[in-house]
């Protein structure tokens, strides 16, 4: 009886501590994440006024526009396509790089990881401007080409430049999770596979890759998500020649005259939906792996 009372008192105190610890974070999330999200969701069903003001009339028109007008549909497909491409290239570059680093003696490993992280010391925009200098018509590469007597190449303001910038910016986010997965991987298993008759290639597909899949999945999500919403790289390196989702959303909110917040909100919501589906697939894949 007395014990029960003590136990209840202890539980009550634990709950109070928990609440005290969780409240600041919860408030932050509600105020700066959930609330804006709800606002955007509401906007996306409203009508745009003639001067870019919001008329509080419910409509599905924004979403209908989104899925029927080719400018928006194309931006969608283009964004998904370049994100897939960026993710795949980052994976193809990042996996071997992570594997190489993990196989070095510990002293070198730290140094090499450090090198992977060094770009983060400089602001992303500054680094993208640096790529402009490298790729420009009178930039470093073309300078080198002309001094060799070769004709100049158009590098800047192409979709190739966009892809290059994206891969450059996102590669560390692929390398780090894969490195972490490989670091936990017991390489004796590769010897065991070889011992049982597996060539290096088959041992990779059958043992190393499945066992490091959580790292691959995490890296892919980390690369894919920011890439699908990006607008800076395609504007600064791609020359804003083609529209990606991010560019359209940015323009609808800030640049078009009049602005169209409801349509921009609908685009943002639709983008989130795609990401949500992808993240669900990712969680399914990784939990499957751990079971």
């Amino acid at each position: 009886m007395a014990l029960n009372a003590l136990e209840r008192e202890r539980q009550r105190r634990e709950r109070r501590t928990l609440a005290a610890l969780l409240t600041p974070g919860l408030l932050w999330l509600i105020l700066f994440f959930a609330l804006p999200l709800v606002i955007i969701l509401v906007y996306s069903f409203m009508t745009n006024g003639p001067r870019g003001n919001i008329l509080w009339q419910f409509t599905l028109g924004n979403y209908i526009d989104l899925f029927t007008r080719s400018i928006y549909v194309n931006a969608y497909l283009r964004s998904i396509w370049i994100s897939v491409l960026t993710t795949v290239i980052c994976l193809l570059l990042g996996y071997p790089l992570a594997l190489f680093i993990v196989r070095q003696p510990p002293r070198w490993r730290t140094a090499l990881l450090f090198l992977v992280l060094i770009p983060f010391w400089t602001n992303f925009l500054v680094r993208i401007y640096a790529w402009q200098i490298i790729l420009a018509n009178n930039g470093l590469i073309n300078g080198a080409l002309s001094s060799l007597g070769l004709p100049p190449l158009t590098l800047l303001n192409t979709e190739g430049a966009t892809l290059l910038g994206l891969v450059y910016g996102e590669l560390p986010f692929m390398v780090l999770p894969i490195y972490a997965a490989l670091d936990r991987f017991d390489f004796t298993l590769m010897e065991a596979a070889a011992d049982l008759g597996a060539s290096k290639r088959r041992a990779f597909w059958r043992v190393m890759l499945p066992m490091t899949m959580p790292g691959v999945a995490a890296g892919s999500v980390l690369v894919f998500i920011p890439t699908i919403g990006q607008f800076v790289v395609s504007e600064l390196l791609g020359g804003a020649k083609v529209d990606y989702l991010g560019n359209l959303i940015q323009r609808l909110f800030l640049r078009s005259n009049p602005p169209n917040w409801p349509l921009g909100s609908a685009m943002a919501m639709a983008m989130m939906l795609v990401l949500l589906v992808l993240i669900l697939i990712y969680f399914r894949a990784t939990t499957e792996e751990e079971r």
Partner: protein
Amino acid sequence: MSTTNAVELHDVVKRFGDIAAVDHVSLEIGDGEFFSLLGPSGCGKTTTLRMIAGFEYPSSGSIVIHGREMATIPPHRRPVNTVFQSYALFPHLTVAQNVAFGLEMKRRPKDEIAARVREALEQVRLSGFADRRPRQLSGGQQQRVALARALINQPEVLLLDEPLGALDQKLRKELQIELKSLQRRVGITFIFVTHDQEEALTMSDRIAVMSQGKVLQIGSPTEIYERPTCRFVADFIGETNFIAGKVIENGANAATIETSDGLRLRGVTPRPVRVGAPAVLSIRPEKALLLAPGDARAGHAFALPVRVELVSYIGSDTRITVRLNDQRTFDVWEQNTLSTLDRDAYWQPGEPAVLVCPPDNALVLTE
């Protein structure tokens, strides 16, 4: 009729940087033999095994398996399989998938694989565990999965790298016997790496004792224990007493040493010794006898007056440490063949005694 050897190593050297981990090792391992590589950690036994498996390549020398030179053959094309020290089971695969791995790599038909996996799991008494993951098994069960995964491929040679090292003492003893009888049944050549001398003595047909990259002696367990050819082997295998001195006379199979304090002791020489060479007289504790003073009989290599210092009764034996007159100690183990509580039947500390040893039981060994 000449029998082919399962594995031959010819003058194999493996260098890591400046260090020779394996230093001019030559071995001939017969077909169907249970052969052990025994030595302390860092003696090169595991490196030798890894070279036979193909995980390391010799710096020089050659490795031949059933008459085929292995120098350019990668591990996945060698007719050998390995049981790893940590088992190296694939954690993402079930027990059955682990065991099936080798056959899958050989692209055997699906129904053949299923049947052989079932058979292999039966052989190691794990039939009910086919769908478990390795981490859901005990250490002993994991060890048996590793064994089944290797043996299902019917290798010409099975390599075992301290496969019992991670198990507790009792399980180890059980598995030693199980492994030995399994080897008899399947008739596959086993090369077994261990640092546990008792394990090697129990299981092996022949043992190679290694130290610092070199093979010091190859022989049957009896040969290794009864006729070690050097001081290291006598010391590493079992217990022994050493009395240091210098060879003063040598015959065909025996020699005499003289200690610094003038004792002259005679013993058998498993390997010829030079007059003048520093040597030790090696006597196993169970091979010496302690007699009451005045009880000394003829026909012993020596009879030394001693004083009993320590007596430890351990059930099957009584272990007695005696002090020689020159402040040297010497261990004698007496088997307790009489069942008695009579105090006089056991030695007491402080008692005078005579230490004697039959001539064949003392060995004269050099470094």
